[in-house]
């Protein structure tokens, strides 16, 4: 069995914990309980005929007064960068975190989720901004931990990138 460490990275309140809860336990809560350090959850996925055990590191959200420490990133094989589509400034945070990740562990597979896509009324990422993000080499998904949109797809895509056939 292949074990892979995956870090959930993004600003605070973007939905990292909710995405893991949706993916691992198929549940969602409207309540916000901010993550302090890290909580590790696991889920196995099949990639072709191989079984990958994903160790999901749900890390606290980056914030001006509290940066994500690089020790959490050590040994990670992949990353899920998460932004909140109702707060475009959280996209910049994912760029900063991606840079820190690359400086720490090099160029590893990563994907970008722009989350809370169910909140159409508050959505604030313009189509042109999205086009620019999609032009970069990493996969981008508009996701929702609430409805489950693109959650399963996103984790699977990352698993495939981590264990290329």
């Amino acid at each position, binding site marked *: 069995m292949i*074990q892979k*460490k995956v870090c959930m990275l993004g600003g*605070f*309140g973007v939905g990292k914990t909710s995405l893991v809860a949706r993916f691992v336990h198929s549940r969602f809560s409207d309540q*916000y*309980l*901010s*993550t*302090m*350090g*890290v*909580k*590790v959850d*696991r889920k196995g996925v099949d990639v072709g005929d191989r079984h990958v055990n994903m*160790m999901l*590191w749900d890390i*606290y*959200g980056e*914030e001006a007064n*509290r940066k994500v*420490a690089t*020790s*959490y990133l*050590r*040994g990670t094989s992949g990353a899920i960068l998460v932004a909140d589509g*109702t*707060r475009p*400034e959280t996209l910049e945070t994912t760029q900063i975190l991606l840079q820190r990740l690359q400086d720490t562990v090099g160029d590893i597979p990563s994907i970008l989720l722009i989350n809370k896509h169910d909140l159409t009324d*508050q959505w*604030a990422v313009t189509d042109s901004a999205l086009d620019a993000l999609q032009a970069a080499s990493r996969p981008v998904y508009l996701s929702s931990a609430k409805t489950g949109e693109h959650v399963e797809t996103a984790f699977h895509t990352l698993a495939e990138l981590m264990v290329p056939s």
Partner: protein
Amino acid sequence: MPTLDLPKHLMGYLTDMYLKDMKPAWVRLDASGEHIAEMGGDWSVYCDGTPSIGNPADDLNPVLMGLFPMPDDFRLSQIEGDNERYFDIDIIQHDGCWVMFSDVTSITLRLQKMQQATNSLHLKYSRSQQILERHVGQPVVDKVHAGSYTLKAEGIRQYITTMFIDVRNFTVFNEAHDAQVVMTTINAYLDIILDEVLNHQGIIDKVTGDGAMTVFGVTGEHKHGAEQSAYDAALIMMNRVASHNQERESQGLEAMKIGMGIASGEAVTGVVGTHKRRAFTAFGRHVNLAARLESKAPGGSILLDDPTYQALSDRKGQTFSTVQLTLKGIGDMQAWRNDVTLS
């Protein structure tokens, strides 16, 4: 304790106060830096049973997977365990590699409350900022935050331009369709209208079922005058609504035109309402006039009062004709009518 100059009983006191609750547990690794050579402390909090000598160190906890041998000092803090407890792991190099676990549940829960409060506040703040922005536009939001614009309860007297916009024939449409369809349809029109008001630094005073009252000049961000901003916004709206209508017609849907009335003059702007529910609004003779003009404007046309017309520095190649109107409560007056030529 080599460095602290403390009598034993004080040291013991501090240890009781700070360290006992942390229930430290430790292992020393063997020369390979991967296996347990020696151990101590209270492991019951961190593992089922005690770790065994000779076992791989990364068996201690999944977060250690793949980390050994570790060449330098290293720290993972506030790892959340299954039992709602938090622990730190420190890896210390000192004649070999040592791994120490400590329980930090109580301090973490305290910090959590603070972090939670800060983060929630941030989220609420950005949400209210977003709502404010949608109602009054970015320039006003910036001014409010900079403290240079406050909505005084007693009101501010100023010269402004008021524009009423209305989607024509909407009542007919409303009666002929399902409520959900009506809602989606009107929102598509209002999107265009409100978007251009904000693009031209106008303020949305109120949105009625099928139109809006908007004001320009309250914040003084108008390079060519509030009248020009309102007029420019009106022309762009007309064009955007026309292309929206074309699209609708190509899908076999009804098209609806918009009509507008624009008037300028002194008004008192400010906040009305009780302290639970307040709204920004403008009062003044010209405000009523703008509403009346709008009610007389056919779909596709703009009616302007004379002060607004005279203040335009750029008519954008549109032609105007004068019209005599008799308006209830206002009397006979001359206004300017522009049947907008689309660009």
